[in-house]
């Protein structure tokens, strides 16, 4: 009888739940952590190019005295957006890309704890990033510097909408990070494979976990600061208005309570990555695993107590200055521990200098320079000479570009065959490394000199009359730095060329190209939608290594021998594969909900009615989500009557 037959779901049309496994819908509505990770990476790289272009324009402007490439206003927008883009739209999401892709694989899980929430984080981040950058076309970008000190950021001194875009954009991007931090913490704590104790987790997973806790507690503080600022700008409050008796230092404290943990949020994922890369290519476990993990956690912890070292010149009073000065020196100790452990990991190993390894070693070298110059700022009185000069610019670029970005590039070369099944070209990789390594030193090395010779940061021009002579000629070193910046840009171009080349030309990489040690290599490359046919049982740190190698007695004593290949290990795992694997279905709601947020933000800036429309979209998205079962019902598939088809359908990809 007609009435009892299953409904012809085609008539649901656009309101059908998405279940596609291929095509654009399979990406836009996906909840698969691997696809989301790849999308995070692609978007982050795009913003890297945006921020990089801004950096090159800045360097062009500063290449010669009293230069006129950029006007003062445009220059101020440029450095503000350069920092904002690089910190919030490149390094953080790229770290999130690796975390998303690898965390479930490294702990032996099928997906993150909340797959739809994961998709939501990504879309919110993307829309937030686009939102901030549309300010370029809607009356000019923010021009107050990335720490947007009040009262310069108030409506009186920054009347354009740039700061509004910046404030609301960071608010949106912050929501994305907050949600993904909750998601990843729950994933790491709750979704580990049997036997994957906390102290057996790969260091990358550990560092990401620490970062997520930092995000969880740092983001609400900047949220408060941003709310106060936007209430001041949009609703007439006076939180930073000196005429009303406000203290502008409140903003600085709130900003840096977030801002300093943010530094560790940026750098710790890279620490994790090279703690994976170095052991693999040294053929040796990480030296002092526990020390590395604990020092990472300590950095995360002490990182909360040092924020005011950004404010040594702001007139806090000597007691605070002294206290924060000492606290800042303290944090150098766990950082030093890490550097020692990495170098000692190489000691006694069998080093294989792949591109990934070179990036990792380059990261140690550059980060050490950045760390040491950091110690010189910890001495508060010396910092009053150094702060807000190019010396500081040199320091944090060594840390962020030399530390974080080099580490992330090591991650690219190391995990590319895992993620895409093809390894990036090693020859191009080495070009990429040397161009970037040399470029970084030539860009940021001279900035140490520039700063100590008295060139402050954030100046659209530096005058001819203030340059010195000989070794300390500001003109010479500024020019060197500009050439260096273009060297880095060339290195990045080589990387992009490498990506294109690899995907056009390269052959499929072997399953275990690096003789790796951790769980993510114990599955197919690229991994199947469900990651593991059978959830692995973990018996040790570096589980895969222990499955491949055994200690064998020889006449020279006990020696390690490779007793099985990764292919064999994988085959054994697949043989005991689970009969039924359940995966959550794709969903419309994350992207719908995320789409509402920039609408609200535009509404706050231009017309409140629009904000209400946005809020309605958010509510619709939220409730649609809550009411939606995590799994698509049979009626959502194209041919519900065809039972066989459905069984084979792989809804996630």
């Amino acid at each position, binding site marked *: 009888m007609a*009435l009892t*037959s299953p*409904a012809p*779901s085609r008539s649901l049309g*656009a309101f059908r739940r998405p279940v596609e496994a291929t095509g654009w819908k399979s990406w836009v509505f996906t909840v698969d952590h691997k696809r989301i990770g790849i999308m995070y990476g692609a978007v982050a790289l795009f913003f890297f190019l945006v921020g990089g272009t801004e950096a090159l324009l800045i360097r062009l402007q500063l290449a010669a005295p009293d230069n006129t490439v950029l006007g003062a206003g445009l220059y101020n927008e440029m450095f503000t957006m350069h920092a904002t883009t690089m910190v919030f739209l490149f390094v953080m999401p790229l770290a999130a890309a690796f975390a998303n892709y690898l965390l479930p694989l490294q702990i032996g899980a099928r997906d993150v704890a909340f797959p739809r929430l994961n998709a939501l984080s990504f879309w919110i981040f993307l829309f937030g990033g686009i939102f901030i950058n549309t300010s370029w076309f809607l009356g000019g970008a923010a021009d107050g510097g990335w720490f947007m000190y009040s009262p310069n950021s108030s409506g009186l001194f920054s009347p354009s909408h740039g700061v509004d875009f910046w404030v609301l954009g960071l608010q949106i991007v912050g929501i994305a990070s907050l949600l993904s931090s909750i998601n990843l913490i729950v994933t790491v704590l709750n979704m580990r494979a049997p036997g994957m104790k906390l102290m057996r987790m790969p260091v990358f997973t550990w560092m990401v976990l620490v970062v997520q806790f930092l995000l969880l507690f740092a983001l609400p503080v900047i949220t408060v600061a941003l709310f106060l600022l936007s209430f001041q700008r949009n609703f007439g409050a006076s939180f930073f208005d000196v005429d009303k*008796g406000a203290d502008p230092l409140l903003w600085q404290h709130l900003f840096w309570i977030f801002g300093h943990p943010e530094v560790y949020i940026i750098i710790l994922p890279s620490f994790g990555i090279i703690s994976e890369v170095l052991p693999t290519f040294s053929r040796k476990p990480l030296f002092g695993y526990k020390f590395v993990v604990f020092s990472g956690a300590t950095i995360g912890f002490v990182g909360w107590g040092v924020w005011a070292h950004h404010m040594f010149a702001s*007139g806090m009073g000597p007691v605070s200055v002294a206290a924060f000065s000492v606290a800042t020196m303290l944090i150098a100790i766990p950082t030093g521990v890490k550097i020692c452990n990495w170098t000692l990991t190489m000691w006694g190993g069998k080093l294989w200098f792949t591109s990934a390894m070179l990036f990792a070693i380059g990261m140690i070298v550059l980060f050490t320079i950045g760390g040491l110059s950091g110690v010189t700022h910890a001495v508060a009185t010396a910092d009053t000479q150094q702060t807000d000069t190019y010396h500081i610019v040199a320091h944090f670029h060594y840390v962020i570009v030399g530390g974080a970005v080099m580490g992330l590039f090591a991650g690219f070369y190391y995990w590319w065959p895992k993620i895409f099944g093809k390894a990036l070209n090693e020859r191009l990789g080495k070009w990429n490394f040397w161009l970037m390594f040399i470029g970084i030193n030539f860009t940021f090395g001279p900035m140490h000199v520039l700063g100590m010779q008295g060139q402050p940061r954030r100046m659209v021009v530096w005058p001819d009359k203030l340059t010195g002579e000989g070794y300390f000629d500001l003109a010479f070193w500024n020019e060197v730095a500009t050439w260096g910046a273009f060297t880095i840009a060339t290195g990045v171009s080589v990387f992009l060329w490498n990506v294109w080349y690899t995907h056009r030309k390269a052959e499929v990489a072997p399953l275990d190209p690096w003789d790796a040690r951790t769980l993510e290599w114990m599955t197919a490359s690229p991994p199947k939608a469900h990651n593991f046919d059978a959830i692995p049982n973990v018996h040790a740190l570096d589980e895969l290594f222990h499955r491949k190698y055994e200690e064998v007695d020889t006449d020279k004593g006990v020696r390690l021998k490779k007793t099985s290949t990764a292919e064999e290990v994988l085959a054994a795992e697949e043989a005991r594969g689970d009969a039924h694997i359940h995966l959550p279905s794709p969903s419309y709601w994350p992207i719908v909900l995320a789409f509402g947020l920039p609408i609200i933000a535009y509404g706050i800036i231009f017309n409140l009615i629009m904000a209400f429309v946005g809020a309605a979209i958010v*509510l619709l998205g939220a409730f649609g989500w809550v009411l939606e079962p995590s799994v698509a019902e049979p009626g959502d598939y194209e041919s519900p009557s065809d039972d066989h088809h459905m069984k084979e359908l792989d809804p996630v990809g």
Partner: protein
Amino acid sequence: MFTTGSKLLFGASALSLVTALVYAWSTEGALSSAGTLGLLSLFVIFAFLGGVNYANRDCNVSSMDEAAVDTAAAAQRPGASSVWPAVVALGIAGLVVGAVSKPAVFKVAVVVLLAGLVEWMVLGWSERAGGDAAFNADTRRRMLHPLEFPVLGALALGAIVYAFSRLMLRLDKDQGRIAFGVVAALVLAGAFLFAGKRKPSKRAVLGISTVAAIALLGAGVASALQGQRSIDEHPTTRTDTEVCLQVGADEEIDADATQSVSATSNLVANIYLKADGSLVAHVSGYPDEARAQLTVPRRAQVNLLFHNESDEAQRLTARTGEGEDESLVCTAAVEEGDQAFLSFQAVRGGVLLVPGLVGGEIELLVP
């Protein structure tokens, strides 16, 4: 394959776009003009409707699909009776009434009309979605629950908040407190009553709830119509500059006299009213020296902290400028041993004084 309906709509969409472009061009590229925006909106709307039609295949079943003919919407019994046409009618009526009376009524009517139309449309559409009534109902739920739940919830919250706050504004302070307690107690009592082992009948629950809701709403609306009790503005030191020359404390104005200042490093000077009746400044930069002169930059914010070490409540007043330009700012009167914060800008020089204190003045120099 495009369906007939979608072809029509896509055509209309394309036409609107072309018209919009022509219009924009003929009005010299004013993209922001109402005409262009309207036409562009039409373009978007038609395109969207076309897309919906296309996705639904005009709600038609392919004639080749023999199995589906039985289950086609046209073959189904018509839907059950619906309240939405009545809501739409109500909306239209409200529209008319609002147009001639109050704009607020008009706005509410627009919302009611829109809500009714959306519900009616989706209901109508979902009843033809498929052959199975349960499936159709589910389709409707899937589409509308995400909207209905939050909107109804927000309406309920809004109604209670509105009614209750109006009621509180109507009643005087003591009555309000009592009313608040009573209403809350009633809610609790009612909940415990209904939660008991022996459940009152559903009808009773519904009846009591309805009566309570109407009572609360009615009380709220009635209070709003009657207007609220009078609430007076508090006088402050700034609303009445005469206060700045008043000796001693004023009970109402000076209720908030004592202020702690969390950061002291932002002070230009600490001003002490000593027990012996002298007024001295401890100026930052001259930490160990009591001075009777204070130089402040012109038109810059100056923050002072006034310490009252005398034995009665006193205020600190800054008088700058002369004649017409004279301006007075002062702290509230602070009790003995307490302190208060004074923040001002000076364009011309003047004095810092404590009203009623003879001889003890600090010269305020503005270069």
